[in-house]
């Protein structure tokens, strides 16, 4: 799916005109299709970190061409930089200077991925400086990449090796088309938990996944992607969206559960449906959300309360029910928003709820870890949906084209891919995190 | 109730066409019309009915006509003849009797008062029928003179009811008596009886409703051939001094029987016409059990909402 502008400037005379005028020419992003190659070319592994070795081995095991030095005359599918050993800002130089020429050879929709460790309060200042330095380098490089290429990083917590299941799963996610609209982000792997799936094309096989707000837009895309990855879907939405919910449920061969999630017993009803009809509950995606935009000076009670009730309060209540039911290994993925990170004019209520989601996720991580599960959030940036179609055209054009590094809005499927990844058992070592799917928009971190 | 011994039977090759009968009736009317009231039954010995019966053999129902009839009445397409359809087959022969030169009453303007019919057994659509018709029982009525026109229909197959010989080897399967009134006509010396007191009409609970369009009479005529102008259009009826055109009495009878007559076996039925059904019309229809008229008997009434007398009423009883 591409927008009209993108099509116009990607071909024919308009392409030349756009080029000369310096207009942004968004690239067609490489998106995941089962059985297609993980990356569009060989992978160059740079850097002297300990991670270089296990990462290379895993890449070879995945059937990729792996080079430790830039191969002559070959376009690179990805460049991975093992920065996990840097202890001084000076340590960044060698790999950085090799990375420059390599990026020149990067294929369209290629990948640059750093593997490093997060700076912590107890680190020696030089160590922390070097580690944070990786983030600055990567985020800036990501803005320099063109042709749909992205730059992201994996942060390995102290004691977690690059061979940890979630580190490898994160690596695979970032290499693949699943992360098409994830750019300039760091995925933090906090533990060695998790297990690689038997089949990377069906990582959710046998899992029962509940998706709220599944009737339309991002929710429908989530249901489709989770189903594609093998999950049995319980599609939840309000009765008023029943017709669309039916279509989605029938398309993904799941069941439709008409339910207002603000009901006090919503969590219980979801559990009951999932257990009785599908014999389990493994994944819950808190996607249902509403906007009732208004400047705060004009905000009324109904607008404020309904947004908070749907977008965050319902999630808190349902999570309590799920934790109370002790569903071992339950993985939750909640929808946050870049508005909740950077703020957005007219969205005080919405941003409060979405920032609240991120707070909830961080604070709930330990509780879900205790039952062998996990909870994370995904914060979409500008995504082309029915909801954003209501944004005025100029605002939309700016949001879509100028702000993100990828110079385009994302698609619902991009958000869904990130959610599917975080919902998988392989991502069990990632907990309490918020992953942005924003094409590296300018707003926020 | 059978042909009296001294009545002479005239056997005709075929039924006289109704159009010719109506034309003859019109000529007769023109010749004998005396302006104003007080017309008398004409001719010497005018109180006498001619002692003749007309008979036509080999009368058969036309299948397509039967189908159109059954459709018009909302009845089911069957291979047996509805009672009113049999009446329609016999009607031209009966008319032949009424328009004969020596028949003492004017046909045009005669009012159909009642019918009593014995439909003695199921009559197949393929049966060759013999129709014998005559007039009898000329008698005064409070408004003029009335006469019964009897038609007997016999078939070779025999009747399962009481058999009265109407032709060699045949039994009467259908016998109808139609009573007509020549309004304002008196036989010489006849004394009209008092108008009987009529009980107030108490409309029964309706069980149905007929909506009769303006062309009801033309539809009926196109099937059974009774092109009497009083049924055809407002204009043709006014030409004969009517306010508007009216439904055929036998149309009402046919509709009533379509929902009340037994679908198999014989039955007797009767109908009395009390008020003309001016077209178009909405007729309220009521059926009810009439145990006093025999087991399985039904009575029916057609009426107009709020009217002081019904359009018609009658009974049907299985034989």
């Amino acid at each position: 799916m591409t927008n009209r502008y993108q099509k116009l400037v990607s071909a024919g005379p308009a392409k030349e005109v756009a080029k000369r005028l310096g207009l942004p020419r968004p690239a067609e992003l490489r998106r995941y299709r089962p059985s297609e190659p993980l990356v569009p070319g060989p992978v160059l592994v740079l850097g002297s970190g300990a991670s270089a070795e296990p990462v290379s081995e895993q890449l070879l095991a995945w059937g990729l061409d792996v080079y430790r030095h830039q191969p002559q005359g070959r376009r690179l599918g990805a460049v991975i930089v093992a920065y996990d050993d840097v202890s001084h800002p000076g340590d960044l130089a060698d790999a950085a200077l090799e990375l420059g020429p390599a990026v020149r050879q990067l294929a369209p929709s290629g990948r640059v991925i750093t593997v490093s460790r997060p700076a912590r309060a107890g680190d020696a200042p030089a160590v922390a400086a070097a580690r944070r330095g990786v983030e600055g380098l990567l985020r800036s490089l990501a803005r320099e990449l063109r042709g749909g290429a992205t730059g992201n990083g994996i942060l390995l917590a102290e004691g977690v090796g690059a061979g940890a299941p979630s580190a490898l799963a994160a690596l695979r996610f970032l290499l693949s088309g699943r992360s098409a609209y994830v750019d300039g982000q760091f995925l933090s792997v906090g533990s060695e938990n998790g297990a690689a799936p038997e089949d990377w094309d069906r990582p959710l096989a046998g899992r029962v996944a509940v998706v709220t707000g599944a009737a339309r837009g991002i929710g429908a895309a989530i249901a489709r992607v989770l189903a594609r990855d093998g999950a049995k879907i319980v599609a939840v939405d309000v009765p008023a969206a029943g017709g669309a919910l039916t279509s989605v449920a029938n398309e993904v061969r799941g069941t439709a559960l008409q339910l207002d999630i603000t009901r006090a017993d919503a969590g219980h009803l979801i559990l009951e449906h999932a257990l009785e009809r599908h014999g389990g509950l493994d994944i819950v995606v808190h996607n249902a959300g509403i906007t009732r935009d208004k400047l705060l000076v004009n905000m009324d009670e109904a607008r404020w309360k309904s947004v908070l009730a749907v977008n965050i309060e319902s999630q808190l209540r349902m999570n309590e029910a799920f934790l109370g039911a002790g569903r071992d290994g339950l993985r939750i993925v909640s929808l946050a928003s870049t508005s909740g990170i950077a703020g957005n004019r007219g969205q005080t209520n919405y941003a409060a709820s979405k920032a609240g989601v991120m707070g909830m996720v961080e604070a709930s991580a330990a509780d879900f870890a205790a039952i062998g599960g996990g909870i994370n959030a995904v914060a979409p940036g500008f995504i082309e949906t029915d909801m954003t179609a209501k944004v005025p055209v100029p605002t939309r054009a700016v949001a879509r084209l100028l702000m993100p590094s990828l110079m385009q809005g994302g698609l619902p499927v991009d958000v869904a891919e990130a959610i599917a990844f975080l919902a998988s058992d392989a991502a069990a070592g990632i907990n309490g995190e918020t992953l942005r799917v924003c094409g590296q928009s300018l707003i926020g971190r | 109730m059978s042909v009296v011994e001294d009545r002479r039977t005239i056997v005709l090759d075929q039924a006289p066409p109704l159009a010719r009968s109506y034309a003859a009736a019109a000529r007769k009317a023109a010749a004998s019309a005396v302006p104003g009231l007080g017309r008398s039954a004409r001719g010497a010995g005018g109180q006498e009915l001619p002692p003749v019966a007309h008979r036509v053999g080999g009368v058969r129902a036309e299948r397509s006509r039967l189908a159109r009839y059954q459709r018009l009445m909302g009845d089911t397409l069957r291979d047996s003849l509805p009672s009113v359809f049999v009446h329609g087959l016999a009607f031209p022969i009966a008319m032949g009797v009424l328009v004969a030169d020596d028949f003492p009453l004017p046909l045009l303007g005669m009012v159909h008062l009642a019918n009593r019919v014995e439909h003695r057994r199921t009559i197949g659509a393929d049966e060759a029928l013999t129709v014998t018709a005559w007039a009898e029982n000329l008698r005064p009525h409070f408004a003029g003179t009335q006469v019964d026109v009897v038609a007997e229909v016999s078939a070779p197959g025999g009747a399962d009811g009481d058999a009265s010989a109407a032709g060699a080897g045949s039994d009467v399967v259908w016998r109808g008596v139609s009573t007509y009134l020549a309004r304002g006509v008196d036989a010489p010396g006849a004394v009209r009886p008092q108008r009987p007191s009529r009980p107030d009409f108490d409309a029964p609970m309706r069980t149905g409703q007929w909506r009769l369009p303006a062309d009801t009479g033309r539809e009926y005529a196109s099937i059974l051939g009774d092109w009497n102008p009083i049924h055809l259009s407002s204009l043709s009826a006014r030409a004969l001094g009517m306010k508007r055109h009216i439904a055929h009495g036998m149309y009402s009878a046919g509709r009533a029987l379509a929902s009340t007559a037994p679908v198999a076996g014989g039955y007797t039925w009767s109908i009395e016409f009390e008020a003309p059904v001016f077209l178009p019309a909405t007729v309220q229809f009521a059926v009810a059990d009439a145990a006093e008229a025999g087991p399985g008997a039904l009575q029916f009434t057609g009426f107009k909402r709020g009217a002081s007398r019904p359009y018609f009423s009658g009974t049907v009883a299985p034989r």
Partner: protein
Amino acid sequence: MASSAPSAPQHPTTGARTVRDAVVIGGNRIPFARANGKYADASNQDMLTAALDGLVARFGLQGERIGAVAAGAVLKHSRDFNLVREAVLGTALDPATPAYDVQMACATGMEAIGSLANKIKLGQLDSAIGGGVDTTSDAPIAVSEGLRRVLLEFSRARSGKQRLAALSKFRPKDLAPNAPGTGEPRTGLSMGEHQALTTAAWGITREAQDELALASHQNLAAAYDRHFFDDLITEYRGLSRDNNLRADTTLEKLGTLKPVFGKDLGSKATMTAGNSTPLTDGASAVLLGSEEYARQHDLPMLANFVDFEAGAVDFVHGREGLLMAPAYAVPRLLERNGLTLQDFDFYEIHEAFAGTVLSTLAAWEDEDFCRNKLGLDAALGPIDRSRLNVAGSSLAAGHPFAATGGRIVATLAKLLHEKGSGRGLISVCAAGGQGVVAILEAR
């Protein structure tokens, strides 16, 4: 048959308990819409497809081969000669799912569901979907009888002369189209006019009818408010509630309406648009299965479809009211199942008109009627009115003829399942002096 079988047919026991249970798994319908409104563009096939698809989504039946789908419509286009099969082909069900049309006027849905239940009981089917659909907005309009005959004759004509002869029979008045009415073909009276006669005969008051209508609206509204219909209804074309529902109606408002039926009864006319069902569009479907089927597919079991019985009365000859057939069918059903009229926790009596329900109840309470018409020793007696149509009925929800049976069966099955025990009685009257009644039992 094995040669050792006894020569005389043996009825193993009375009632329908000798064979396996037929279980109501659940139901789905689209909200019912007043005619010429929200669903004005939708055909019977469209609506039935939507109802079936919603059922498929609710129970995850995508790609499933269901034993049989039986449904129907009262008002049908000639193009809908295979309505249900065509609808099935448009759903997410396995295209190898057989389907057939049933038609029994307003009892179409009940007859479809009941006969499917029988097949399940007999082991002929493991799963089945029964239901119905009707639209008065997209009703078939036929050419006049005259034009139709001219056209038929024309098409049969072999020569130009014959064709000319056929065309010569055409009359301008034949151009007027025929729309279907709700009139009884044999009497020419509309259903409402028929019921007006019955209502008057039983002396049912205007107040009693309005009270029943009010209760229907209040009960339906309350059921929506407690989310009762969340798993019984699927939004369609922007409508997520029956739009005939007037949650805020009052006896005063109902009392201001003028009579629309039985106006010939003068001051005794009691039937208004408020205590009669409006013309409505909608569709419903009910999933039935054997116990094993439900268990194997992890599907809920709401109630057993215990038994059903059809009845008919002679309204043509004025011997009984058009919509009184259930009054006759119920005692036979009770007798067969060894029950009394009071042995039920719920009564679902279809509200074709408030007068229909009240006349039926009055008849059952009437000693004379029960003795002379039903041949019983005594009156069937009164029912506990607090158990009547507790989740609303047709006066509030509307009545898309063939879809009503599916609405009632699914509603009652869920009510029984919620209660966890007991049984319910269904009574649905139908055009042509017919009716179907049924018993459901909680699971």
